[in-house]
C-alpha cells in the first residue's frame, strides 16, 4: 500500500527553499509566443486560468516535457528538468479526456506507471489496488475504461497520475469532460485529493469556478502572458483585465484618479470613495447598477449615465442587461424591474452607481 499523506500537514504548507516548482516557460511558435513564469511551493495548488488559445495547455505540456522549451528554465525541487525527457520527469498528468488506455482495465491503467518505473507486476498491481481503494473504486478495478462513468474515469486518471508519486501533478481541464451534475460531485472530491497531495499541483482551466474552488493561487494567462496572479479572493476583488473582470462578473474600467474623481479612459468621470491619484482600476458589480427610465432627480448617486440597451439575457433568477452609451456596462435587475422599465434592445435608460458601491485600486 502506498500513502500519499506522509508529510505532516504543518510541514507541507511552506517547503524548504529550493523545494517546489520554479519555472519560466518560453515556447516560441512563430506567430504564438508563450512566456509564463510559475513558482509554487510543495502543497500549493496553482490554477492557470485563461481563455481558449491563451497558451495554458501549451504551458502544461511544456511542464510535462511534451513540448520543448525554446527558452527560460524549469526547476523542480532544485533539479533542472529542461533537458529531461518526459518519461524521466517526476511529473504526473491528468489529461483533459483522461486518455485511459482503452485495452487495459482500471487496475492495469493505474499499475502502468509503477510498472514502467521498475516495480514488478505484482508490486505495481498491489500499489494500483491501493490507489483505486483510496479513490473509492475498488469495485471497478477490473472494468475497462469504456465501462466507467465520467466521474469514475476521472478518478482512475487521477489515481494513474498519482501512482508514479510525482513531485508535480498537472491537470488539464480536469472537469471539462463531465456533465454539470457529476462535475459538482467530482469537483468536491478532486478538491479533497488535491488538498492531500503533498507536492506541487498545477491545473489548467477556463472555468473560474473550478479555479477558485480547487486552487490556492490563480495565474491568469492571456495571449501567452501572465496578466494577473494572486489568491482567488484577491483576483475576484481586484480584476486587472477585461477578461478577468468578465470571469468574476464585475464592470471594470481604467482611468486616472485625482482625489475622489477618476477620469476614465472610456470617457466620463466616476466618483469613488477612495482617495487615490495616478492610474487606477475602478470595479463595481452589475448588481450595484440601478436603472431608470427618466433621468432621476435628487438622486444621491453621482455616477449617472445615459445608456442604450444592447442586449438582455437571463442570469440566474435575474435579468442581465448589456448597456452601451457614454459608459458601456452590464447591470443586473430583477425580472419585475425589467418589466416595469419596459426594457428591450434599443431602449434608452439612465444608469446610476453609488460611489460607495465602487471599488478603486492602483493600476
Amino acid at each position: 500500500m502506498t500513502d500519499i499523506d506522509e508529510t505532516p500537514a504543518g510541514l507541507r504548507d511552506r517547503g524548504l527553499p529550493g523545494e517546489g516548482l520554479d519555472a519560466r516557460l518560453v515556447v516560441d511558435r512563430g506567430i504564438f509566443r508563450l512566456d509564463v513564469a510559475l513558482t509554487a511551493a510543495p502543497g500549493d495548488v496553482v490554477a492557470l486560468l485563461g481563455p481558449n488559445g491563451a497558451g495554458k495547455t501549451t504551458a502544461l505540456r511544456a511542464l510535462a516535457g511534451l513540448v520543448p522549451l525554446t527558452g527560460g528554465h524549469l526547476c523542480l525541487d532544485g533539479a533542472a528538468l529542461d533537458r529531461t525527457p518526459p518519461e524521466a520527469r517526476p511529473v504526473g498528468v491528468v489529461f483533459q479526456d483522461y486518455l485511459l488506455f482503452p485495452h487495459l482495465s482500471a487496475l492495469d491503467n493505474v499499475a502502468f506507471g509503477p510498472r514502467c518505473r521498475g516495480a514488478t507486476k505484482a508490486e505495481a498491481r498491489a500499489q494500483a489496488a491501493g490507489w483505486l481503494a483510496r479513490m473509492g473504486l475498488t469495485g471497478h478495478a477490473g472494468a475497462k475504461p469504456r465501462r466507467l462513468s465520467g466521474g469514475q474515469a476521472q478518478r482512475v486518471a487521477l489515481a494513474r497520475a498519482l501512482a508514479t508519486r510525482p513531485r508535480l501533478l498537472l491537470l488539464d481541464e480536469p472537469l471539462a469532460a463531465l456533465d454539470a451534475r457529476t462535475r459538482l460531485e467530482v469537483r468536491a472530491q478532486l478538491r479533497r485529493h488535491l488538498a492531500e497531495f503533498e507536492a506541487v499541483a498545477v491545473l489548467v482551466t477556463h472555468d473560474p469556478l473550478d479555479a477558485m474552488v480547487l486552487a490556492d493561487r490563480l495565474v491568469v494567462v492571456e495571449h501567452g502572458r501572465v496578466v494577473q496572479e494572486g489568491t482567488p479572493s484577491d483576483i475576484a476583488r481586484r480584476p486587472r483585465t477585461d477578461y478577468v473582470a468578465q470571469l468574476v462578473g464585475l464592470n471594470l474600467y481604467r482611468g486616472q484618479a485625482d482625489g475622489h474623481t477618476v477620469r476614465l479612459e472610456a470617457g466620463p468621470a466616476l466618483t469613488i470613495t477612495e482617495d487615490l491619484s495616478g492610474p487606477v482600476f475602478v470595479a463595481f458589480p452589475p448588481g450595484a447598477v440601478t436603472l431608470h427610465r427618466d433621468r432621476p432627480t435628487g438622486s444621491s448617486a453621482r455616477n449617472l449615465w445615459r445608456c442604450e440597451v444592447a442586449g438582455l439575457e437571463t442570469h440566474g433568477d435575474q435579468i442581465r442587461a448589456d448597456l452601451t452609451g457614454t459608459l458601456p456596462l452590464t447591470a443586473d435587475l430583477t425580472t419585475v424591474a425589467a418589466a416595469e422599465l419596459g426594457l428591450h434592445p434599443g431602449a434608452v435608460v439612465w444608469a446610476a452607481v453609488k460611489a460607495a458601491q465602487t471599488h478603486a485600486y492602483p493600476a
Partner: protein
Amino acid sequence: MTEVDRARTVVPESGARRARALGGVPLPLLLPALVGLAFLLLPLLALLIRAPWRSLPQQLTSAEVWQALQLSLVSATAATAVSLVLGVPLAWLLARTDFPGRGLVRALVTLPLVLPPVVGGVALLLALGRGGVVGQWLDAWFGITLPFTTAGVVVAEAFVAMPFLVISVEGTLRAADPRYEEAATTLGASRFTAFRRVTLPLIAPGIAAGAVLAWARALGEFGATITFAGNFPGRTQTMPLAVYLALQNDPAAAIALSLVLLTVSIAVLAGLRDRWMTAST
C-alpha cells in the same frame, strides 16, 4: 493550439441505409453497372460450372496438389511473418516520425504495389541472386543462396506483399490518437515501451487486417516467385505456379487447383467482411 479536438475514428454510416431503392436508377448507370458485375462474376461462375466435380476428390488428394498447397500456405505465412516483423516498425516510422524525404520513402515503399511482379523478381535476382549486389556477399560469407529455394519463395512473396501491410498499418496508426503514447510517456514509459504496451494493442485490428491482406497477396503471388525462385515441385512450386503448369497438360487439375485457391480467397473475404464489406462507403 493543442486543444484542438483530434478527430476520432468515425464509423461510417452503413452505405445500405443511405442508398435508395433501385427503382429510380438511370439506365446509363444501371446498364454498365450490371455488365460490370457480370464481368466480375462470370469467370468465377465458369470455374464452378466446368469443375470436374466427379474426379475432384482424386485430383485434390494427389501428392503434387498437397505439396503445392502446403508449400503455398507455409511460404505465404512465412512471408506474412517477415512483413509483420519489418513492416509494422516501418509503418510506425512513416506515421509517427518526421524526417526529411519521408514522402519519397513512402512512395518507394508503395512502389511494389504497382510494379509488375516479374520486374520485382528480376530486381530481386539482381540484388539477392548468387551474383547480385548483396547476394554475392551472402554467398561468399554465409554460403546462403536464395534464388530457386523455398526461402527465395518467401523473399519474393514478402517483397510483393509487405507494402499492403505497411499501408494498412500506417493508416491505422494515423487514425489512432497519438496522445495515448504521450500519456504513456508521462507515466515513465520509453517510446518503445509506449509502442509495445499501448500503441500495438490499440492498432491490433489494423495489423490483423493488413496481415490477412498481405497473406492473401502472398498466396496468389506468381510473377516475382517464378522469376526469382523458379518452378521446382516441392521446393518452389506454389499453387499459382502449379495451376499455370497444369493448365498446359492437365486442364482438369488446373481447375481443381483453382477451386482450392478460390475457396481460400472466399474464406479470407469472409474473415474480413466486418471490415470491408459493411464499413466501406
